[in-house]
C-alpha cells in the first residue's frame, strides 16, 4: 500500500508513471486512449504496468475531459443571470476577429442560448458601492422564468455574473443563496468565486464555462471513482490542475475550469523537475501529436497566467501555468497554399487517422511522415514497437507534396521539418518578447512524443546552447502529475494606487486571500505548515498590461511595499528599455499561493536493463546530406556516458536526434544533455 501513481489521459494515449515509495520500484505504461471511456484506458494502463489497485496509496490524474467538452460543446444547459441591461455581454464579446480578411468567419458560440440570459435590476459601481439595491421581487420574477426552463428540461446549471462583483459580491451571494433554496437541484456558479477579476465578458464567459462543465465533471469523477473502487482501489485520488498543483477529486468537481490545462501543466512540472538539474533558466517544449506547448521557467519558477483562450474569442480566467500553444506536432499536416508556399499545420491528422505512416487511412503528409522518411524514426520501434510505421505510406504521402513543389521527396521532407521547426522558433521568439527574456541564456527542455527529434534544430536557430531531454520524454505529463504538489492560488482584482496605498490595506487583502488558499489545502487534509507566497500585478497608471512582483512576505510593511514598487520599475525598464520614475503605479491584481512544501525525494528514474545493440541507420540532414549514423538505445547508456553527433538515441517512447558535432551526455537522473555546437544560419 505504498504506490503513488501519476496518469495522464490525453486524446491519443493514456500514460502512467508510478513509484513504490517503499521499494523504490518504478512502474510505467502507455496505452491507447479509448474515446468516451477514460476509465477503461486507466484500468488498462494500471494492468499493463503490473500495478495492483489495492496497493495504490495515491493516484493523480491529468485529463483533457473539460477542454474537449468545451470545444465540442458537450456541456450542460445553462442559464445566465446578470445585471439588467447586460444580458448580451456573452454574445457581444469583444468585437475583434480571428482573421483580417474573412467575411465568412463566425464568432464563437458562448455555450448557451440568448433566450436563457436574464437580467435583474441591481447595480454596484466601480468603487464597490451599491447604486441600485437588489430587491427580492426581482428574484421572484426570475424564479418563474427559471421554473419554466426546469419544467421543459432546459436547465441544469446557472451562471451568475453581476457587474463589479469582484469588488462587492453581496448581490451575487444573495442571488446564490436564493438559487440554492429555490432550485436545490441546479448547479450554481458565482462569478466572484469562479474568477474574481475585472472585465465582465471574460469573468462572465468563465463563469458560464464553469456552469457548463460542472455536471459533466461531477459525472466523470464519480465514474472514475466508482470504477477504481470496484477494482479494489482504496487510496485517495486527485486531479491535476492548470496551475501545476493537485486537488482532491471530489473537490475538483466543483471547480472544473481549474482543470482545463491539467495535462499540459503536468508536462511543465516534469520539465522543470528534470530541467533544474541543468542548473539554469528553462524553456519547456512539449511537442506531441497535435500541438506544441511552451513554458518559460526563470530562477526555478514557472510563470503563472490568469487567462487562457480555449478558442479564439473565448478567454477563460483561471490560474494556470503560463503556456503558449501552437498547432505544430507530429500529426501536423504539410500543404502547399495557392501561392505555392509550403505550410505546416495548423490542421492535424490527430490520432485518427493519424499520420499516413500509421496505416490507418491517413493520406496527407505530416511531420511524423517526414521524420520517418528522413530516417529519424525507426519504423519497427515506434513506441517500443507497439506501433509499426509504414515507410511506404509516408513516402507516398510526402511524394504527393513533393510533386506539387517540384522537388524530390527527401527535399520535401526536409522542408516540412524546417517549416515545423521555424513555426516553433517564431512562437518562442514572440513569447520571449512577451515575457521579456533573452532565450540565448536559457536551456531548452524538450519532451512529448516528438520534442526530442526537433529540439536541437530549434535551439540552434534560437542560439540556445543547451538542450535537455528528460528520461521517458513521452511520459512527462504523467510524471508531472506524480510529483505535483498540493497547490492553491487565489486572485483578486483590486484598485490600489502607489500614491495612496498603505501596507495595512494591502495586508487585509493578503490575509483574506491567504485564508481562502489555506482553507482549501486544509480541506485536502494537509497538516502542518504551508508555504504561502504572494505576488502583485502592477502597471503604470494608464497602462493596460501588468507585471508581477513577488512579495518577500505576507506580513508586509510600508518600506517593503515601496521596495516592491521599485522592483516593478526595474522590471519595466528591463523588459521595455525605459521606466517612468515618479509616475503613479497601480496594483491591479493580488495573487496568493499556498503550497504544501512536502519534499519528496524520488529515487533515480531507473532504466530497464536491456541489451539492444547499437546499430547504424541512414539519416538525411539539411546540412550534411545522407549520412550513416550510429543508433543507441537509451537504456544501454550509463550515467556520464558521452558522445558526439550525428547519432540517434532511441527510447521506448521517444527518439532523440543528436545533430552533427553536438555533444550529448547522460546525466545522473537519466536525462540527456545536448551541447549545441555552433550556429548554422
Amino acid at each position, binding site marked *: 500500500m505504498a504506490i503513488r501513481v501519476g496518469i495522464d489521459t490525453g486524446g491519443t494515449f493514456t500514460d502512467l508513471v508510478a513509484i513504490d515509495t517503499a521499494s523504490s520500484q518504478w512502474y510505467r505504461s502507455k496505452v491507447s486512449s479509448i474515446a468516451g471511456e477514460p476509465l477503461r484506458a486507466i484500468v488498462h494502463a494500471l494492468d499493463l504496468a503490473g500495478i495492483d489497485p489495492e496497493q495504490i496509496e495515491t493516484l493523480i490524474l491529468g485529463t483533457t475531459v473539460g477542454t474537449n467538452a468545451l470545444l465540442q460543446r458537450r456541456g450542460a444547459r445553462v442559464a445566465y443571470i446578470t445585471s439588467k441591461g447586460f444580458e448580451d455581454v456573452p454574445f*457581444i464579446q469583444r468585437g475583434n476577429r480571428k482573421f483580417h480578411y*474573412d467575411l*465568412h468567419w463566425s464568432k464563437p458560440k458562448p455555450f448557451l442560448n440568448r433566450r436563457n440570459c436574464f437580467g435583474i435590476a441591481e447595480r454596484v459601481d*466601480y468603487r464597490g458601492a451599491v447604486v441600485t439595491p437588489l430587491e427580492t421581487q426581482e428574484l421572484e420574477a426570475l424564479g418563474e422564468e427559471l421554473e419554466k426552463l426546469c419544467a421543459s428540461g432546459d436547465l441544469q446549471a446557472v451562471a451568475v455574473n453581476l457587474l463589479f462583483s469582484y469588488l462587492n459580491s453581496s448581490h451575487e451571494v444573495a442571488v446564490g443563496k436564493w438559487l440554492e433554496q429555490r432550485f436545490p437541484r441546479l448547479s450554481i456558479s458565482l462569478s466572484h468565486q469562479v474568477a474574481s477579476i475585472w472585465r465582465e465578458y471574460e469573468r462572465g464567459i468563465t463563469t458560464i464555462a464553469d456552469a457548463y462543465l460542472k455536471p459533466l465533471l461531477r459525472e466523470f469523477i464519480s465514474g472514475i471513482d466508482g470504477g477504481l473502487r470496484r477494482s479494489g482501489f482504496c487510496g485517495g485520488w486527485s486531479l491535476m490542475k492548470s496551475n501545476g498543483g493537485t486537488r482532491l477529486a471530489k473537490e475538483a468537481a466543483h471547480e472544473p475550469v481549474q482543470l482545463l490545462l491539467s495535462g499540459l501543466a503536468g508536462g511543465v512540472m516534469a520539465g522543470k523537475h528534470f530541467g533544474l538539474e541543468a542548473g539554469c533558466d528553462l524553456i519547456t517544449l512539449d511537442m506531441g501529436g497535435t500541438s506544441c506547448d511552451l513554458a518559460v521557467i526563470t530562477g526555478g519558477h514557472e510563470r503563472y497566467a490568469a487567462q487562457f483562450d480555449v478558442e479564439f474569442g473565448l478567454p477563460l480566467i483561471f490560474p494556470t501555468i503560463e503556456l503558449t500553444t501552437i498547432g505544430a506536432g507530429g500529426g501536423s499536416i504539410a500543404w502547399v497554399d*495557392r501561392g*505555392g508556399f509550403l505550410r505546416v499545420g495548423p490542421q492535424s491528422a490527430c490520432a485518427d487517422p493519424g499520420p499516413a505512416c500509421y496505416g490507418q487511412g491517413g493520406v496527407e503528409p505530416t511531420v511524423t511522415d517526414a521524420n520517418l522518411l528522413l530516417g529519424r524514426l525507426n519504423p519497427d520501434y515506434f513506441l517500443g514497437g507497439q506501433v509499426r510505421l509504414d515507410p511506404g505510406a509516408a513516402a507516398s504521402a510526402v511524394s504527393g507534396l513533393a510533386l506539387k513543389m517540384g*522537388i524530390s521527396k527527401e527535399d520535401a521532407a526536409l522542408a516540412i521539418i524546417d*517549416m515545423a521547426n521555424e513555426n516553433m522558433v517564431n512562437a518562442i521568439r514572440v513569447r520571449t518578447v512577451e515575457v521579456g527574456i533573452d532565450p540565448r541564456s536559457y536551456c531548452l527542455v524538450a519532451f512529448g512524443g516528438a520534442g526530442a527529434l526537433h529540439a536541437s534544430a530549434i535551439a540552434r536557430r534560437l542560439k540556445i546552447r543547451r538542450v535537455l531531454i528528460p528520461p521517458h520524454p513521452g511520459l512527462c505529463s504523467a510524471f508531472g502529475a506524480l510529483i505535483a504538489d498540493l497547490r492553491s492560488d487565489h486572485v483578486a482584482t483590486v484598485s490600489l494606487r502607489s500614491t495612496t496605498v498603505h501596507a495595512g490595506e494591502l495586508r487585509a487583502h493578503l490575509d483574506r486571500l491567504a485564508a481562502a488558499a489555506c482553507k482549501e489545502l486544509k480541506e485536502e487534509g494537509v497538516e502542518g505548515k504551508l508555504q504561502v507566497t504572494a505576488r502583485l500585478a502592477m502597471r503604470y497608471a494608464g497602462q493596460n498590461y501588468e507585471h508581477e512582483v513577488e512579495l518577500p512576505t505576507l506580513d508586509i510593511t510600508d518600506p517593503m511595499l515601496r521596495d516592491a514598487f521599485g522592483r516593478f520599475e526595474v522590471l519595466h525598464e528591463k523588459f521595455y528599455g525605459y521606466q517612468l520614475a515618479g509616475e503613479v503605479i497601480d496594483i491591479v491584481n493580488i495573487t496568493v499561493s499556498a503550497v504544501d512544501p512536502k519534499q519528496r525525494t524520488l529515487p533515480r528514474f531507473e532504466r530497464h536493463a536491456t541489451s539492444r545493440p547499437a546499430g547504424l541507420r541512414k539519416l538525411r540532414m539539411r546540412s550534411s546530406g545522407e549520412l550513416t549514423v550510429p543508433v543507441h538505445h537509451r537504456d544501454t547508456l550509463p550515467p556520464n556516458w558521452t558522445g558526439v553527433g550525428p547519432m540517434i538515441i532511441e527510447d521506448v517512447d521517444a527518439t532523440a536526434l543528436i545533430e552533427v558535432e553536438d555533444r550529448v551526455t547522460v546525466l545522473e537522473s537519466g536525462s540527456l544533455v545536448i551541447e549545441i555546437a555552433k550556429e548554422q544560419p
Partner: protein
Amino acid sequence: MQTDSTELTLLHNRLTSICREMGVAMMKTAYSPVFNEGFDFVCSLFDREGRMIAQAEYNPSMLGAAIYTVEWMLNEIGVECFRQGDVWVHNDPYRGGCHLPEHMLLKPVFHKDELFGFAATIGHIAEIGGKAVGALAGDATEIYQEGLRLPPVKLMDRGEHAMDIWKILMTNHRTPKLTWGDLHAMLGSLHIGESRLIELLEARGLSRTLDETKELMQRAEAWMRREIEAIPDGEYRFEDWMENDGITDEPRRIKVAVSVRGGEIIADFTGTDPQTRGPINATYAVTAAATYNAAFHLTDPQVPRNAGCYRPIKIIAPPGTLVNVQHPAPEIGGNSETHCRIIGVVMGALAQAVPERAAAADGATGCNFLFGGIHPDTGEFYANYHFENVGWGAAANHDGNDAQCAPLAISRNVPVEVFETRYPILVRSLRLLTDSGGAGLFRGGLGTERILEIRAPEMTVSALFDRMRIPPWGLQGGSAGGTTSISIRRAGDSDFRLFTDVFHTVTPSKFSNIIVRQGDLIRIVSSGGGGYGDPFQRPARKVLNDVLDRYVSPQQARNLYGVVLREGEGTLSFDEAPSRTMAGERGAASVNLKA
C-alpha cells in the same frame, strides 16, 4: 531552385514574426486603450527603397496606407539623410498619411554601416490638441482644427531625444502623459524590430536578404494576380452615400467603377462628389487602403502582405473629391467613416463578379464618440475616443456576426468595468438591438444599443457618426440593416432627443464640443448588417428561433419574414403557409446581383 522556395517561406515567416514581436512590445507598454485594447496600430518592415517587405496582422486600415506614408517620407527626407539611431515621426495626411491621429514612426536599420531598410510603426495617438478632445471633431472645416500636424521630423536623433519636437508635442496635446507613454511604446517596438532585423542580416547577409525579399514581393504579386484572374473580367459599378459632412446636411455620393482585366483591378472613383467643407474627406492613401482592404476580403487571405500584393490593384481617385482631398480641407472622419464606405462600394462592385464570396454591407461606421473633462475623483483631465461595434452583413450561406468591429479595423471594445473605472460615466445598459439585422434568407448581424449616464458636473462630448439615415444595404433581396443614432435625455426629461433638437447642431450625427451635465443620459445605437437573399425563403423554424432568442421581434417575423407566431401553453409555434404569401414590408435598400 526549389530549396529557395522553402528558404523564402522561412524568411517570410521570420519577417512576419519580427513584426508580431514589435506589436507585442507595443501593446504591452502603450498607455492608450486605443493601442492595447483597440489594436489601432501597425508594425511593418520596409526595404531601403521604401517597399514594404512584411507586416503583422494589426489594423488593416493603416496597413494599406503605410506604403504611401513611407514612400512620401523617403522622397521628402532623402534616403541618404537617415542615420543610425534616428527615428522620424510624421502624421501629415497631406504627405501620404491617413488622418492626423495616425503617427508614423520610422527607424532606419543598418547592417555594417549600410542601410538595409526600415522598421515602421503607425499608432493612433488619442489626443493631439485639435478643436475637439480626441481629434474627431465632426464639424471641423480645416485641417488646422483637427490637431497638431507634423511633417516628417526627427523624434530621435542618433539615439537621443530630439527635445525641440518633444516639447512641441507635450505642449500641444491635451494629455501629454499619454502621448509620451504611447510614443515610447512605439519606440520600444521599433527597437525590437531593428535588433531582430540586424540579427537576421548578420545570419543571412544584406544583399542576399534584399534579393530574397524582392523575390518574395514578386511571388506575392504573382499570387495576387492569379487570384484576380479567377474573378470574371468586367466592369462593375456601385455607389453609396455619406449622409452629410457635418457642415451641411446633404448626402454625398461615392461612386466606383471596378474593372477586372486579367490579373489587374482598377478602381476608378470618377464621378464621386467634390470634397466637402466638413471632415469626411478621405486622402488618397485612405482610398487606396480601403480599396486594398476590399480586394483582400475577396481573394485568398493567405497571400503574403508585402508590397507585391498591392501592385496589381490600381486606384484612380480624382483630386479635389471626397476620395482624394486637397489641402487644407478637414479629413479626420475620412479615415474612420468614409473609409468604411469606400470598402463597402468596392466590395459591392466586386460582389457582382463573385457573389458567393461577397456579403451584404456591414454596419460600416465607428460611431465615434469623444468625451473629456475633469474627473471628479482625481481632479485630472481625461479624454477618450470611444467607438462601437456593428452588425456584419449576411452572405450566401450564413448569417452576419453581431457586434463586430467594422472591417477597417480589428479593435476590441472596452469592458464596462474598465470604462467606468477610468471615466465618470455609468453604463446603464449595453445590448444587442433586436431587429437591427437586415432580414434575409440569411440575416444580417445585430448592432448594439448603449446607454451612458454622465456622472460628472460637466463633460464635453463630440460625435462623428454616419449611417443614421442611409442604412447598410442588403444583397439579393435581403433587407437593409438598422441605422445608427446618438441621442440625449437631459436630466429631468423623459425622452431621448437628437442633438439637433437639444443643442441645435447642424447634423444629428456629426458635432463637437457639446457640454453635457450630471445625470444626462446618452443613447448610442450602432448599425446592423444587411440581409442576404429573400427573407421569405428563410426557414420558418429559424425565424422562430430568431424570435425566441430576440434577434427578431414577432412583428418583424410577420412583416418581413412572413412568419406568424402563435403563443399557446407557454410555447411559441409558427404558422407559415397563409402568411408567407402575404406581401410583407420589404427592405428599402437591397442590391440585386446579376450573376
